[in-house]
């Protein structure tokens, strides 16, 4: 009976390193670089059961539109290798109800809230942003431009730099100065850097990337598309290399523009890849479905990973993979080895 390794939550955890993990998204300071991804955390309330949502950098809420939306029919998802396909269709309560219930709750709870907004027209984006300007508790805006433009036969804003820029300048104008406006880019474009340039010129304070990439699954039993919406957005670890590539390219082209990186982050090391590629912070999405407490876990794993590599702070790690190749930093340098030994020591003494 005593052999039973009853492993309730707090496993024998190593102490957290004392390292400055604070960061910024534009003018918005964050206690650490871990946020949730839009559409993967609703408005934080459900996840607060699994970890204290005020202990991560922030909650990015599900994209909200002007009016209530019922979304698409089901099936809305299909599991894929290391990922999933979704076609939710932006189901949501509409901005008024969102402000009254969700935002108010987040504010009272003391969470840092980045509100994701969506629209079918430039006007709708501006209206939603305008409503949020009047509300309390909005720390930042993320503009989801991966939605169809009803005025342009449903072409997605993210794939049309001109329309995307119009959305961004309208939102920027409707948003309190000082509240950063981040624009979320789609990877489904030929040249993500040119879209990034267009939206930054239009007033974006930073970029979130990436949104899901379009995919499709056919059910071999019914021999029809698996999703009612036929195509869906692919997310999860399956898209991580694509996401890291996007962050890398955009950071290389515009190193001064802050990036909120995401796409398949499952562990602290995955998050570190994005940071090294140039992201100032990261969002955890699909992996929340696998592990609802993952944002807190990844926060701690990342802190350890950054410290183990000898960085004095998170800030020093941002974009570090872009450094000149000839910098001699002795990759297995003394700091690294020493820390490792210290850890071993503390472990063995804990065992006694």
């Amino acid at each position, binding site marked *: 009976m005593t052999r039973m390794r009853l492993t309730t939550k707090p496993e024998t955890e190593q102490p957290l390193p004392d390292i400055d993990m604070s960061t910024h998204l534009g003018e918005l300071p964050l206690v650490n670089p871990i946020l949730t991804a839009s559409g993967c955390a609703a408005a934080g309330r459900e996840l607060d059961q699994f970890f204290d949502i005020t202990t991560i950098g922030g909650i990015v809420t599900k994209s909200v539109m002007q009016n*209530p939306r*019922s*979304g698409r029919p*089901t*099936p809305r998802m299909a599991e894929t290798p290391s990922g999933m396909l979704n076609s939710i269709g932006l*189901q949501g309560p*509409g901005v008024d*109800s969102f402000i009254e219930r969700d935002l108010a709750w987040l504010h009272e709870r003391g969470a840092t809230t980045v509100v994701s907004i969506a629209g079918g027209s430039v006007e709708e984006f501006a209206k939603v942003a305008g409503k949020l300007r009047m509300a309390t508790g909005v720390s930042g805006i993320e503009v989801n431009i991966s939605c169809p433009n009803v005025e342009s036969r449903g072409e997605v804003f993210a794939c049309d730099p001109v329309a995307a820029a119009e959305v961004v300048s309208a939102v920027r104008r409707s948003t309190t100065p000082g509240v950063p406006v981040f624009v979320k880019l789609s990877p489904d474009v030929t040249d993500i850097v040119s879209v990034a340039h267009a939206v930054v010129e239009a007033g974006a304070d930073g970029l979130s990337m990436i949104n899901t990439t379009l995919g499709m699954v056919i059910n071999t039993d019914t021999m029809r598309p698996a999703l009612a919406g036929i195509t869906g957005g692919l997310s999860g670890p399956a898209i991580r290399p694509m996401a890291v590539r996007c962050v890398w390219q955009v950071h290389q082209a515009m190193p001064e523009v802050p990036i909120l990186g995401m796409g398949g982050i499952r562990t602290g090391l995955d998050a570190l890849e994005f940071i090294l590629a140039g992201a100032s912070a990261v969002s955890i999405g699909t992996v929340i*479905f696998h592990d609802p407490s993952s944002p807190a876990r990844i926060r701690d794993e990342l802190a350890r990973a950054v410290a183990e590599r000898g960085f004095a702070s998170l800030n020093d790690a941002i974009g570090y993979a872009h450094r000149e190749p000839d910098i001699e930093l002795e990759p297995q340098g003394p700091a690294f080895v020493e820390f490792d030994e210290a850890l071993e020591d503390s472990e063995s003494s804990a065992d006694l």
Partner: protein
Amino acid sequence: MAVQVKGEVLDIRRIGSYFNLSMVAPGIAEHARPGHFVALNVGGDSSSLLLRRAFSIYRTEQRGVYGGTVDIVFSIAGPGTAWLADRQRHDPIDIVGPLGRPFVLPAEPVPCVLIGGGYGAAPLFTLAEKLRERGCRVDFVLGASTEDRLFGALEGKRMSQSIAITTEDGSLGERGRVTDVLPRIIERSDSAVLYACGPMGMLQAVAKTAERYGIHSQCAVEESMACGVGVCMTCVMPVIGDDGQTRMVRSCVEGPVFRGDRVRWSEVGTVPDDTIGSIAWTQATNDSLFAASAPVAVEEDLPVDGEDAFVEASDADDEGSAS
């Protein structure tokens, strides 16, 4: 309130074509009510099967050296359940639960029929216990396609006034479906409530039968779920609220147990035109409505069923002490 625990396999046994998996799951057993479910990770820490698998709670045990244990009953449907079937005693398992809204219990000791299709019988035995504690008469109807897919016949017999069994091939009990024998049992026992868990088609038929007899039905549904905890919006169904309006509601948090007369069964898999927020609804509702009226609640806080005869199998007591 749900928790995520690193549990451990206590035992796994075959029962007919099903597996009964017992897990040490401290913190879940204590709060589980009949109709709650758990969501399990499958495939190990670096699994490419990312999404949790949902299973009704069959049984919980709170005593003993292990802390709380939770049992589920499942059949192999694909790679996730195949992986679960391969577990050995002491294997770790990541469990989230208890999830969803449980069955609502009648305040009065009224006769109830519990109807299970295949592994859908699993959550009904703890329910039967609770109902009997309240003095309710319990009759069981269990059905499956074949005998080896029938679950819990002996247990059902032990816990009930009567049990009827149907199989589609006639290998055990009566040949046919549960709803073929259901009217007979309702009439005989003067039932006031039907509780059902099983395939959607069966639930729809049960809900219809209840309506025909003017009695209540509580149906536990099974929709495809990505998160199981209410954050992803994949598991929605068209359900009518207390205000008579249809909304696409999340079956993982507002279900899996719904009042049978509230689910728009034949429209599951669609967004009916009169659903709040549908394209047709939005077109029909002019902008002034949004300017003038109070915002419409889409998610959450679907008012809990209001009948006087019903009390929720509530967590109120635990929640009170927790906060």
